[in-house]
């Protein structure tokens, strides 16, 4: 029996039995999608207060998407050795520690004790700390400090293969490189769980849908061949062009489970729950900076205008962690901006979970309730690709907020 038919059957059964759409009441259907959450494991959820008049900030970032995957090679510049570590697309936070470890590994045989890091975003900081842990003395050179870097305009959650590479542009061995990075990062992030201020934390993320998760509106549309592809246009033209590697690490990433029938507290037919790792920017940034300074690190504020300016640095080994800025600074025109916008509402610790619904995402973090349109236009991974508009778009923010305003207006909280 095909999965789609299964769901149709379960839908009918659920509708007949309870008068409410619920597919996981049919064991076969649940089996097809994964485990069903044991009854009673969904705690009483406090509805989130999501309204446009609660928006306190709208942040825009440009993900440094590089079709070939992050640049990790060594390049001699002037009399320096530059170790590149940039171009992580929508996966910079997630892959940072692993990518840093690889960069430091490349630099280690140079036997240089005193090194420079350019850039103080998440890649720069994790590279600097990883270099310290390998016994190096590190100076960070940065135009902006953490609160002003693009890194903290991300949504800050574990998304290790979000716009990380294109299938046709990445080398065949990149999949294994990615896997190593992802595993290393995941393990390193775990070390920050449970620390004061919860720099790294987990949230239950509820993935909601009015239609069965394998219905046509959840599957990628067939590529429109008339639009061409990255090979013919220099821009990805369909979602199918983006490399996805998540299956390689599913043995360590908590899976989603179904919320069946009465256990589904949301006013939608289909709900899944998946614990996700999140990064609280304030606490985590503070933890990283403290670690860096305590290990003797130094930060110098300066802007570089061309690669040749690294010649002025006293250090002979330079880690280039400049993210999207590498497009202009290092002339890497393969970097494609992918615009992403997040709206921030006051923190709501009582509603301590995430929701994904109708192309929008909501995530309760210690520094605010984040609301983001992740696929409002139905473009999926193509949303924001090639868009370098870094100004906030209020209408888009309100559109995403409206998704959750509507959802929670229909929400009937249960009393535990």
């Amino acid at each position, binding site marked *: 029996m095909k999965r789609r038919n299964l769901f149709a059957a379960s839908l009918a059964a659920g509708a007949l039995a309870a008068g409410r759409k619920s597919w996981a009441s049919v064991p076969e259907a649940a089996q097809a999608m994964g485990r069903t959450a044991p009854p009673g494991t969904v705690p009483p959820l406090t509805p989130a207060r999501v309204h446009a008049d609660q928006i306190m900030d709208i942040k825009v970032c440009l993900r440094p998407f590089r079709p070939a995957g992050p640049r990790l090679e060594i390049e001699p510049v002037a009399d320096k*050795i530059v170790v590149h570590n940039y171009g992580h697309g929508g996966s910079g936070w997630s892959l940072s520690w692993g990518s840093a470890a690889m960069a430091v*590994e490349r630099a280690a045989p140079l*036997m*240089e004790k005193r090194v420079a890091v350019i850039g103080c975003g998440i890649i720069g900081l994790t590279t600097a700390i990883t270099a310290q842990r*390998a*016994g190096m003395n590190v100076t960070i050179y940065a135009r902006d400090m953490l609160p002003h870097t693009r890194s903290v305009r991300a949504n800050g959650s574990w998304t290790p293969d979000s716009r990380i590479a294109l299938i046709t542009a990445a080398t065949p061995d990149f999949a294994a490189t990615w896997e190593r990075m992802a595993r290393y990062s995941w393990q390193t992030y775990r070390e920050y769980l449970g620390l004061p201020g919860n720099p790294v934390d987990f949230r239950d993320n509820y993935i909601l849908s009015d239609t069965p998760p394998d219905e046509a509106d959840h599957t990628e549309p067939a590529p429109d061949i008339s639009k061409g592809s990255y090979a013919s246009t220099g821009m990805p033209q369909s979602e199918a062009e983006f490399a996805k590697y998540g299956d390689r690490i599913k043995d360590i990433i908590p899976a989603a489970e179904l919320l069946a029938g009465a256990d589904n507290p949301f006013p939608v037919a289909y709900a899944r729950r998946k614990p996700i790792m999140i990064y609280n920017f304030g606490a985590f940034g503070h933890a990283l900076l403290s670690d860096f300074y305590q290990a003797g690190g130094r930060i110098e504020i300066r802007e570089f205008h061309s690669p*040749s300016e690294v*010649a002025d640095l006293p250090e002979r080994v330079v880690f280039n962690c400049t993210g999207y800025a590498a497009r202009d600074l290092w002339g890497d025109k393969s970097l494609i901006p992918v615009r992403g916008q997040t709206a921030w509402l006051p923190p709501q610790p009582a509603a301590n979970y995430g929701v994904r619904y109708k192309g929008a995402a909501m995530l309760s973090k210690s520094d605010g309730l984040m609301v983001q349109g992740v696929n409002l236009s139905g473009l999926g991974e193509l949303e924001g690709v090639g868009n370098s508009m870094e100004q906030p778009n209020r209408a888009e923010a309100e559109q995403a907020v409206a998704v959750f305003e509507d959802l929670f207006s229909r929400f009937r909280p249960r009393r535990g």
Partner: protein
Amino acid sequence: MAPHPIFAKQAQKAKGFCTALLAITALVATTHAALAAPRHAPAPAPATAPSFTAEQADHGAQIYAGTCAMCHGAALEGAHDMPPLRGLFVARWANTPLNKLYAYITHAMPLMAPGTLPPQDNIDIMAFLLRENGTEPGHTPLPADENRLAQMVFPAPNALPPVKAAPPGKAPRTR
């Protein structure tokens, strides 16, 4: 003096041509800025430079794949809780007499059954590690003799040359 290993192959190609000297000079000049300057390196030459054969390294690779790779990774890359045998490994062992590395491998490895590999296997694993970390194989085998190993050190073929003290007021810069 032997050319810096990074340039050895290129330098070899230039040999035999009447322009050899020019070519090497140009090569050194252009790459000096980049990586290392053998002409400035104050020859840290140990009593004996480590030498091993390609056969030893190949055999070592086989032993490695069967005995070591399960922890240290097929590409010697290590993992979060497992030391890599390249990259940082060089920084940790560079300029250490090889008898110490040999003793460590012999007494501590493989971790689940220390000391179970025959001496020649451990020697060949060392040859493999040398090759994977940038030392070219030669004609003389790596000896299974601790006294002779003590005369050799683990090389750091990609190390930057030592910094020369710059005259005061002048930045040590090459444009």
